[in-house]
């Protein structure tokens, strides 16, 4: 019997998810022995035509990382959906919008205006903007257009499974591949990761405050961080209470607070609301002015609480960013 075929594609992403495949180290040999990669633009020389030439459902599984922001990414997502039996949203961006999803705080026009005109490092005297058509000597070129907002993969095509993380922990990738090969997959729509909060198996859990205790919020560079004590108890914004575990608390072990890349556990739909709720319990002020003063220590709540998931949050995007045609 021929080996199952697999694809690995990227959309709006940084390449870190591909790194996590490389991080399999020698285990990758076992993977390529069991699976045939038939599409993997970062690592291998297959083209879009090769995918188009496949039968529908020819790939057993396709991993897509990165959020969806352009017409090209949308087309590729739709194409790969047709050609794969199982589609896995791989990594925070694909799962929840990720870091690119932070762009849902700005309209496309605001982004273009800053990037092509106002940014201090931009030198663009002719005011050139990206175009979807261009007349080159060789003929007319058509380029992908930028959507008005960033979407997670499941807002564009049906997704079978999710693997969270920025980038996903290698152990989760291994577990998913093993489950796929054995046919022992969880129910469709599952997030393939432990379903407990990060705090649950945090080595510092014993020092986590049960009572309101935080008097002010600090940034990691402002204090000497204790290596043993709960980071929240030290006034650092650790998203552990609202974030799924399964990452082996790599950031915590590195003495840095959790920034929430694994997304919420299955019982929580909105990660940011969950951490707002938790911080409301932990902040040790009753006076409105003192509360305000303490909250000034969180200069960017949207970017902090939804760093990896604005498109997947209840509000999805800043109100009004899709208004008008936003053409440029």
């Amino acid at each position, binding site marked *: 019997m021929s080996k199952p075929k697999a694809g690995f594609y990227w959309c709006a992403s940084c390449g870190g998810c591909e790194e996590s495949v490389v991080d399999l180290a020698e285990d990758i040999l076992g993977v390529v022995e069991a699976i045939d990669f038939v599409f993997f633009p970062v690592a291998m020389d297959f083209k879009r035509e090769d995918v188009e030439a496949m039968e529908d459902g020819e790939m057993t599984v396709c991993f897509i990382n990165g959020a969806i922001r352009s017409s090209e990414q949308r087309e590729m997502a739709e194409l790969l959906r047709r050609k794969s039996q199982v589609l896995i949203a791989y990594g925070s961006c694909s799962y929840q919008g990720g870091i690119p999803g932070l762009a849902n705080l700005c309209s496309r026009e605001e982004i273009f205006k800053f990037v092509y005109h106002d940014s201090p490092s931009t030198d663009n005297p002719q005011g050139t903007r990206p175009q979807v058509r261009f007349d080159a000597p060789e003929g007319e070129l058509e380029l992908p257009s930028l959507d008005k907002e960033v*979407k997670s993969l499941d807002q564009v095509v049906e997704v079978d499974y999710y693997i969270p993380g920025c980038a996903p922990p290698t152990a989760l990738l291994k577990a998913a591949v093993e489950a796929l090969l054995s046919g022992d997959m969880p129910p469709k729509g599952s997030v393939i990761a432990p379903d407990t909060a990060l705090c649950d198996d945090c080595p510092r859990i014993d020092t986590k405050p049960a009572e309101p205790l935080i008097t002010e919020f600090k940034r990691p560079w402002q204090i000497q961080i204790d290596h043993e004590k709960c980071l929240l108890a030290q006034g650092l914004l650790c998203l552990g209470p609202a974030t799924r575990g399964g990452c082996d608390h790599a950031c915590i072990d590195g003495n840095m607070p959790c920034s929430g890349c694994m997304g919420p556990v299955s019982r929580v739909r909105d990660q940011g609301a969950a951490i707002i*709720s938790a911080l*409301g319990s932990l902040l040790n002020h009753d006076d409105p002015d003192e509360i*305000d003063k303490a909250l000034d220590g969180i200069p960017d709540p949207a970017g902090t609480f939804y760093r990896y998931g604005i498109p997947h949050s209840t509000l*999805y995007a800043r*109100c009004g*960013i899709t208004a008008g045609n936003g053409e440029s």
Partner: protein
Amino acid sequence: MSKDTPLPSAEGFEPRIVAFFCNWCTYTASDLAGTSRMQYAPNTRVIRVMCSGRIDPRFVLQTLREGADGVLLGGCRPGDCHYQSGNYKCLRRFKLLKRYLAQMGVENERVRLEWIAASEGDRVQKVTNEMVEQIRKLGHCRLEQIPRPETEPAAETHDLEQVGAGGMI
């Protein structure tokens, strides 16, 4: 008025406000307003919770997502919480949530927290009328629509069932 009720035209806009009132003070006050026959705008749908500390920020977000134009939270006055500290928790969550909502372009007037003691029926009347007028001026709360793949059936209503059944927040 259910979610499916057709919205009146722009000139006849009636704000839909969902109010979360705590059992011990604000809900009792709204009862008092009713039994005292105080008249006020009929635009609020009141949901009774045991304590304002029970109001998860997610309730507010989902209420807006489901089509409310405003959300009013009511709890016991500071120092009067039936459970000692629930209203302070509510206040801290509310203040943090408001900062987030401002970043998301949700106008300040749409989400409001008021301390209303059990005897202050007139305050329920005043606050409700005030809020309805403010939101009437703002118009509908227009959140950005969440896209769905064409092949998948709409899953938004399904959400609510899970809230009821499984305690999903």
